[in-house]
C-alpha cells in the first residue's frame, strides 16, 4: 500500500493526473481573505475551505449571526482562537441538547 501511494504521488508530480469531475464543479469559494479581525460576537459558525475542495485559496469561512459569510485566513492566530471558541460553544450546545 505504501508503494502504491508513492507511485501515485510520483505520478502526480510527473503531472500525469486528470482532475476528473464529470460532476458539478461550481463551488462557493472565498477568493481572498483579509487580516482584519472579525469580532467573536457576530459569528455563530464556520467551515474550512480547502484547495482540494475546488477553491483557489484555503480559508476559514465564518457565518455571522446575520447569515453573512466572511472570509478569513486559514491559519492566523486570531482565526484559530475564534474557531476554538466556536467549537467549544457548539460542543456545549450539543451536550445540552442531549441532556
Amino acid at each position, binding site marked *: 500500500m505504501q508503494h502504491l501511494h508513492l507511485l501515485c504521488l510520483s505520478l502526480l508530480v510527473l503531472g500525469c493526473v486528470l482532475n476528473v*469531475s464529470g460532476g458539478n464543479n461550481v463551488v462557493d469559494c472565498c477568493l481572498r481573505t483579509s487580516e482584519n479581525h472579525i469580532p467573536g460576537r457576530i459569528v455563530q459558525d464556520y467551515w474550512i475551505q480547502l484547495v*482540494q475542495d475546488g477553491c483557489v485559496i484555503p480559508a476559514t469561512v465564518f457565518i455571522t449571526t446575520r447569515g453573512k459569510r466572511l472570509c478569513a485566513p486559514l491559519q492566523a492566530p486570531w482565526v484559530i482562537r475564534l474557531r476554538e471558541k466556536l467549537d467549544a460553544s457548539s460542543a456545549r450546545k450539543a451536550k445540552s441538547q442531549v441532556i
Partner: protein
Amino acid sequence: MGQTGHGASGHRLDSTWEQQDMGQIGWGGYSWEAGALPELCEKEAVQGFARTYQPAVYLLLSLLGAAGNGLVLLTHTRYRRAHSITDVCLLHLALSDLLLLLTLPFAVTVTLQGWAPGTAACKALQGLYALNFYSGFLFLTCISVDRYVAIVRVPAACRLRPRARRYGWLTAGLAWLLAALLALPQFVYGRAEQHQDLRLCRAVFPPAVSRAARGATNLAQVVLGFAVPFLVMACCYAAVARTLLAARGAQPHRALRVLLALVLVFVALQLPHSLMVLLDTAELLASWATTCAQSRRKDLALLVTGGLAYLRCCLNPLLYAFLGQRFRRELWLLASDAGCVGPRDPRCSGCPSPRRRSSLSTCQDVA
C-alpha cells in the same frame, strides 16, 4: 458568547462591526466586496444553470454517443476482420468513448442529488472516467500516425501489412496500459465525501500536495488531452495532405475535406476547454486576485466548454467511421440482416474492400 477576553477596546471594535453587519443589509451586499472584510463568493446562478445544463447535455450526449459508438462496435465485431492498426484503434476508440459517455449519467445524478453509492463505486467511476478520457486521445493519436504511415511511408506500410493486425492489438493494448497508469491516482484517491450539504464523489488528493497536485493535474489535462494529440495529428495529417495533393488522383479533395474536418472538429471542441483549464491553472498557481464576477464567468465557461468537449466522443463515430464507405456498406448489411431493409447487394465475405484512396500507390505498385 459575550466572553471575548479582548478588553474594553475590543468591545468597542465589536460594536462597530456589529453596526456594519446590520447596516450592510441596506447596502445590497456591495460593502464587503469593496470593504475591509471579504465575503464568500456565492454562485447560486451558475449552480442553477449547471443543474439544468448538465443533465440535459450529458444525457443527450450519452444517448447519441451510445447509439453511434454502439453501431461502430456492432459492425466491427460482426463484419470486419481488422486488417490495419486504424481498424483496431477505431474499434477501441468506440469502446472507450462508449464507456466514457456511460459515466456521464452518474455524473448527472451526483450534480442533482449527491453521491449515494459508497467509496468503492466512486473509485470505479472516477477511474473509468479517467481511463477512457486518456485512452480516447491515445487512440486518436494512433489513428493519425497509422494513416501517416499508410499514405506517406508506403514501403514501411507494406512491410508492416502482414502483421498489421497483431501490431494493432499491441498498440491498443499499450494505449490501454498507459491510460490505466495515468488513471491510477483516480482509482486510489477517488472518495465519496461530504462537502457542505452534498455528498460528492471525487478524487481527493492529500492536503500536503493539494495545490501542486491540482496545478499538475490541470497542466497534464491540457498537455496530454490537447497539446500532444493535436501536435501529432497536425503533423501527420499535414504530411498526408501534402502527399494527397501531390498525388492528384481521383478524389483528393474529398479525402482532404475529411482530414480537415477531423482536425477542425478536434480543435473546435477541445481547444476552448483546454484554454479555460489553462486559465484556471494560471489563476491557481499564480494566485491571481479575481473578483467574484470574474470567478462566476470562469466557472460558467468551464461548464459550457466541458460539455462541448464531451461532444467529441459522439462525433468520433461520425468522423472516423461513418465517413468511410466501407462502414456505410456494413451499416446497410446490418440493417438488412436485422430485416429493416431489403438486401441491396448480396453479402459476400470475400468482397475485396475498396481501396481507401484509389489514386494512391498500393503495395503492388511498390513491390
